[in-house]
C-alpha cells in the first residue's frame, strides 16, 4: 500500500459544491484533495445534464451543467487541488492524533483534520438490470464496463441497451466474438446515427443478432454464464447461448459507504448545524444536496453558501490558535495574489 497522503481537507464529491469548497478553502490557504467515483469532475451536472441549461445561478442568467463545471474549474485552478477520480470513499476512521483517515475503494489513504462530504445524492454506480440472480454473475460473466477487450474474444456476447456504450461495444466486440446479440426495448436508438447504421449493416450481414427484447433470466453455474432467456414485447420467451452479458443502462445514484461513516444520517441525509455545516462528528462537515437542516433547499447556490461557511469553521480546526482575517477578494491584495490576479 502506498504512503498515506496528508492534507488539510479531504472533499468527498467533485460536484459544484465540492468544487467551490476548494475555492473558499483556498482563500484561507487550506489545501484540498477531492475524491470522486466518476472519472471527471462535475457530479450530477456533467453526468446527468451536461447540455441542459441552469437558470438560477446568481450572475449567470443561463449556463449549462458542463459550462458551470468548466467555470468552477477555472475559478479554483489557482489553488491546485488534487483530484482522485474513479475512486469511492469507502472508509473513515478517527486517528489518535485527532485527524481523520479516509480510505478509498482502490486503496488510497488520505489523512486530514477536516473531511467535507459533498456527495450529493451519493455515488454514481452502473444500473443493474432487474434480472433474477444477476449478482452471482457480476465480475465473472456480467460486466458493466469493458476493461480488456481480449477477454471477450471467442465468446457468445449479449449486450443490452440503446445508448452509445451499447452500440460502441457492439461494433467493437462483434469482430472478435463467437456471436454477439444486442437487445433493446425498441427498434430505435439514442446512440449516434453512424453507430446505429454500422450496427444495422452488421445485422444485415448476419454478424450481429438484434432483438427488440429484454433479458429475463441468466443461466449458469458458479458465476459462469452459459445461457440467457430473452423476452419479446409479445411476452414470448426464448433462450440463447451467452458467456458474457454487458448491460449498458448508464448510471444511477446510490448512497454507498457514507451510510457507514457514523455521522447520524437522517433519511440518507447528514444533519448539520447552519453556522459551521459540521455534522455530529467534529471535523466532518457536509455541504450541498447530501445535508439537511431546517429550511434546506437542494439548490446549487445553497451549496456555494454552505461551502463558504464551512471553510471558515474548517480553518479553526486546521490552524488552531491562528487568527482568521476576513477579507474581500475585491480589495485584498493578499487574496488577489493567491488568485494569481495580476499574472
Amino acid at each position: 500500500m502506498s504512503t498515506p497522503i496528508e492534507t488539510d481537507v479531504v472533499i468527498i464529491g467533485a460536484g459544484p459544491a465540492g468544487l467551490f469548497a476548494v475555492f473558499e478553502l483556498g482563500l484561507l490557504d487550506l489545501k484540498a484533495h477531492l475524491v470522486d467515483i466518476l472519472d471527471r469532475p462535475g457530479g450530477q451536472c456533467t453526468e446527468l445534464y451536461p447540455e441542459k441549461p441552469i437558470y438560477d445561478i446568481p450572475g449567470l442568467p443561463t449556463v449549462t451543467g458542463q459550462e458551470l463545471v468548466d467555470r468552477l474549474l477555472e475559478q479554483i485552478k489557482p489553488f491546485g487541488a488534487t483530484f482522485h477520480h474513479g475512486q469511492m470513499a469507502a472508509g473513515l476512521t478517527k486517528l489518535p492524533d485527532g485527524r481523520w483517515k479516509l480510505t478509498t475503494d482502490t486503496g488510497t489513504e488520505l489523512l486530514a483534520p477536516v473531511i467535507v462530504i459533498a456527495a450529493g445524492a451519493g455515488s454514481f454506480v452502473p444500473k443493474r438490470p432487474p434480472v433474477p440472480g444477476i449478482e452471482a454473475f457480476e465480475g465473472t460473466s456480467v460486466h458493466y464496463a469493458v476493461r480488456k477487450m481480449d477477454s471477450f474474444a471467442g465468446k457468445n456476447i449479449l449486450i443490452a441497451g440503446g445508448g452509445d456504450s451499447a452500440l460502441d461495444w457492439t461494433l467493437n466486440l462483434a469482430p472478435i466474438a463467437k456471436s454477439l446479440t444486442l437487445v433493446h426495448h425498441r427498434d430505435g436508438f439514442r446512440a449516434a446515427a453512424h453507430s446505429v447504421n454500422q450496427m444495422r449493416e452488421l445485422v444485415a450481414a448476419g454478424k450481429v443478432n438484434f432483438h427488440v427484447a429484454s433479458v429475463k433470466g441468466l443461466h449458469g453455474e458458479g458465476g459462469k454464464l452459459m445461457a440467457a432467456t430473452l423476452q419479446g414485447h409479445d411476452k414470448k420467451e426464448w433462450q440463447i447461448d451467452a458467456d458474457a452479458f454487458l448491460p449498458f443502462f448508464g448510471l444511477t445514484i446510490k448512497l454507498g459507504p457514507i451510510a457507514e461513516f457514523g455521522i447520524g444520517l437522517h433519511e440518507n441525509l447528514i444533519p448539520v448545524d447552519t453556522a459551521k455545516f459540521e455534522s455530529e462528528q467534529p471535523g466532518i462537515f457536509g455541504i450541498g444536496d447530501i445535508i439537511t437542516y431546517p429550511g434546506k433547499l437542494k439548490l446549487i447556490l445553497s451549496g456555494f453558501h454552505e461551502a463558504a461557511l464551512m471553510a471558515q469553521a474548517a480553518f479553526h480546526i486546521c490552524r488552531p490558535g491562528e487568527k482568521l482575517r476576513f477579507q474581500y477578494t475585491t480589495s485584498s491584495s493578499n487574496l488577489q495574489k493567491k488568485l494569481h490576479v495580476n499574472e
Partner: protein
Amino acid sequence: MKIYATDREGKLHEIEGREGWTIMEMLRDAGLPVAAECGGACACATCQVYVEDGWYEKLNPPADMETDMLDMALAVQPNSRLSCQLVCSEELDGIKVTLAPE
C-alpha cells in the same frame, strides 16, 4: 383528479392529483418510492411508470428527450413513461400507473 398508482408490492394507492403538477411529484408527495434523482429534469429515468388500462394511448406522445431517457431505463415496456413528464389534468382523471422496478 385522481391517480391510481400500484406500488412495487402490488398495493394500489388512490392519490389526489394537483392540476399542473407532474405525476412524479404526486407519487413522491404521497410517499411512494419514486427516486426521481434528477428532480424532474428528464435527466435520469428513475421515475419510470407503466401506464395501464388504455391510458397510455390518451397521453401526449413522449418528446424526443423522454424517449432518449427511456433508452437508459431498466425494464422498459411499450407502455413505459417517465412520470416527471406527465402533467396532471382533468383529462387524466382516473389514470392508472404502476411503478417500474428500481
